[in-house]
């Protein structure tokens, strides 16, 4: 099948890119998504979207950029950050015009709330379902354009890149079970993060990050994969996200003794310190025996206290949290503490791209015709730690930028010819999937067992507190999993909607992404942002103020480093909140 522009992934970044591209040029756009287009995990974003909408004496673009850079532990590329803060208000206003129901002030302006790591309230929100509202609005606006074709439930299995130029992808149509070849002039990868590498995560079952593994395999590079964010508050035991908005609206974190323990870790910002700090604080409390223990799962947790906020705030501003707490834990936030503990939330790393979202090969040259946006890309505005609510801004901003750039590129690029080579590549892929994976008689390891092993290994060896020795033990485990994948058995032999096969393919990519995390984490001998090492507890700006770039070299992960782009903020303060 031929299209001008392929958009792989249908989260906020993907849909925003599609929208912008469709408006920019009358080209034939296809959105490929492994779930139905409006089901992407962006819907679960709760808190809000940061943007300096009404600059005054308290707030300015400068300050937002500074907060972001400081929050990132100075690993963010500062030119990208400046682009982000500049574009974010434009994007918020754009979303307002296409119909997002932002929460309002009585005079009709947009309401903004406080968020972790931000020095002033600047998080625009729509109750506590911001991501959902943006997603559904974007999705419904997609329907305006006839030149966008949606492919629901197409699982991309391979990127075809030739001589540094993007050619197409092969995708498995889950509904019919056929492998299809898509040829296109350009593509935008917007497949999101890899939260499911870990067991206890806030992300959806579909956020597996196999695309990152596929990217590695097709010769692209991953940047800063070792930085995995733990969100401080996820419901115990399910891992469902409790938005930072709960603390932004004034919630407290308390331990078993009823003490607001954050005063010992971040005396000024208390609960609204950046996420890595709060997460570590909670885990420290639990480790030191001041947390509660969940009876059924044995997990330690602390309490999120919203009792003093009153019913009005709970019902108006954070209704979803109340609902989730009530539904999945059986706790009424007005009367009891909500049990929370940190869970994997975001991968700061992703596909190596430049400031404008163009995908770069390991040697730093642009892979022509390929962009990446959103969580899947590491533009590196988040550096070592993302500030809450910056992600929606990032997705939207880079969705727009890449969409526009890709549309312009696709207008000028020549139509791809149906070459024998691509058909051969597709056939190779077909035989890999259907002959080798699906119709295999031998091998007895279940996909889910192996996935469980991967998640356990990641949780155990590459958790929020990392140590050289444990990580060294973890890598052989991952390699063993890689090896065992050859013996994986897909028990469902059918073609139509074969989820078992999809899970196997997901796992395949996940293992590679996990390896990139593992190697990157082992190599980085310092503590920065979300990457915290017990054996190197300090930040080391002299040796490690650089991005990790991981790529495949002969089937092995190899690392190289590139410098951080620094413009204005050259004084590297210690992060104290």
């Amino acid at each position: 099948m031929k299209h001008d522009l392929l958009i792989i992934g249908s989260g906020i970044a993907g849909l925003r890119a599609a929208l912008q591209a469709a408006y920019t040029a009358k080209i034939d756009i296809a959105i490929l998504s492994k779930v139905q287009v409006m089901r992407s995990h962006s819907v679960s974003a709760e808190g809000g979207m940061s943007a300096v909408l009404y600059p005054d004496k308290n707030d300015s673009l400068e300050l937002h950029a500074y907060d972001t850079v400081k929050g990132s532990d100075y690993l963010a590329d500062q030119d990208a950050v400046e682009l982000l803060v500049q574009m974010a208000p434009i994007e918020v206003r754009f979303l307002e015009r296409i119909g997002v129901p932002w929460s309002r002030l009585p005079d009709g302006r947009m309401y903004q709330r406080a968020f972790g790591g931000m020095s002033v309230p600047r998080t625009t929100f729509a109750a506590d379902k911001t991501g959902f509202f943006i997603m559904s609005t974007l999705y419904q606006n997609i329907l305006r354009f006839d030149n966008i074709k949606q492919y629901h439930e197409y699982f991309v299995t391979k990127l075809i890149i030739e001589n540094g130029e993007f050619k197409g992808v092969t995708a498995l149509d889950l509904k019919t079970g056929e492998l299809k070849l898509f040829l296109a002039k350009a593509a935008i990868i917007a497949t999101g993060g890899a939260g499911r590498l870990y067991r206890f995560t806030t992300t959806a079952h579909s956020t597996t990050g196999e695309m990152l593994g596929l990217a590695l395999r097709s010769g692209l590079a991953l940047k800063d994969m070792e930085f995995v964010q733990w969100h401080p508050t996820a419901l115990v035991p399910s891992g469902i996200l409790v938005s930072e908005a709960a603390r932004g609206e004034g919630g407290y974190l308390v331990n078993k003794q009823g003490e607001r323990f954050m005063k010992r870790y971040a005396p000024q910002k208390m609960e609204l310190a950046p996420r890595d700090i709060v997460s570590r604080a909670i885990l420290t409390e639990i480790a030191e025996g001041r947390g509660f223990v969940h009876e059924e799962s044995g997990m330690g947790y602390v309490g999120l206290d919203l009792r003093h906020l009153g019913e009005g705030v709970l019902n108006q501003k954070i209704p979803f949290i109340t609902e989730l707490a009530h539904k999945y834990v059986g706790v009424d936030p007005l009367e009891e503490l909500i049990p929370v503990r940190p869970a994997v939330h975001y991968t700061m790393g992703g596909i190596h791209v430049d400031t404008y979202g163009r995908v770069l090969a390991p040697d730093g040259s642009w892979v022509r015709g390929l962009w990446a946006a959103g969580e899947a890309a590491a533009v590196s505005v988040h550096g070592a730690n993302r500030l809450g609510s910056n992600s929606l801004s990032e997705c939207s901003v880079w969705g727009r930028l890449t969409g526009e750039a890709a549309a312009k590129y696709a207008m000028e690029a020549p139509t791809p010819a149906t070459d024998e080579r691509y058909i051969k590549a597709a056939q190779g892929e077909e035989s890999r999937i259907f002959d080798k994976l699906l119709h295999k008689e031998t091998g007895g390891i279940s996909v889910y067992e192996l996935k469980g092993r991967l998640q356990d290994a990641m949780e155990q060896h590459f958790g929020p507190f990392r140590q050289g020795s444990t990580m060294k033990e973890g890598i052989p485990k991952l390699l063993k999993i890689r090896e065992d994948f050859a013996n994986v058995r897909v028990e469902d032999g059918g073609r139509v909607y074969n989820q078992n096969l999809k899970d196997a393919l997901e796992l395949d990519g996940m293992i590679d992404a996990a390896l990139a995390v593992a190697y990157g984490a082992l190599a980085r001998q310092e503590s920065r942002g979300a990457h915290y090492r017990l054996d190197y507890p300090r930040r080391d700006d002299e040796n490690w103020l650089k991005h990790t770039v991981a790529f495949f070299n002969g089937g092995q992960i190899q690392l190289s480093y590139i410098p951080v782009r620094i413009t204005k903020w050259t004084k590297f303060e210690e992060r104290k909140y």
Partner: protein
Amino acid sequence: MSSRRSSYINVEGGVENMRAGRGAGEWFRLINYERLYFTIQRISGLYMFFYLIFYRVLFDAFVSPSLVSSFDMTVPGKVLAALFLVFLAFHGLNGFRIMLIEFGIIRGWPLRNPIRNVPGLRRSRIHLIYNVLMIIIAVAALVYLPYLVTYGAVFRP
């Protein structure tokens, strides 16, 4: 399409295009009380249509008035007539409710609550009162009209 009706049979083969659910059978599924109203409304409407047009008009006026009058006095005739009247009462009452809703007189507004969302109609006081009245009248009609049909005098002024 042919498989729709039989899709509830436990095992069946050769279905390429299965549609879940019972097709027209869905009209008789009971989930909430408004749906019950819908079902009765529909059945009663159809019943009255056929009863009036075919029996009362066609037979009475064009075929044989005396036959109709005498059939009305037999037990089956009385059952049909009683059914007609009860249905008429319900159809009218519920129809009036529908009118009130469709003209926007009964409104209310959905309550958004984190723990339990309440649909708008359930929050309208008029709707609630009307429902109670409607049920009372319908029950009264259910008793009174068959009674009239069975024991009521033939109206001869």
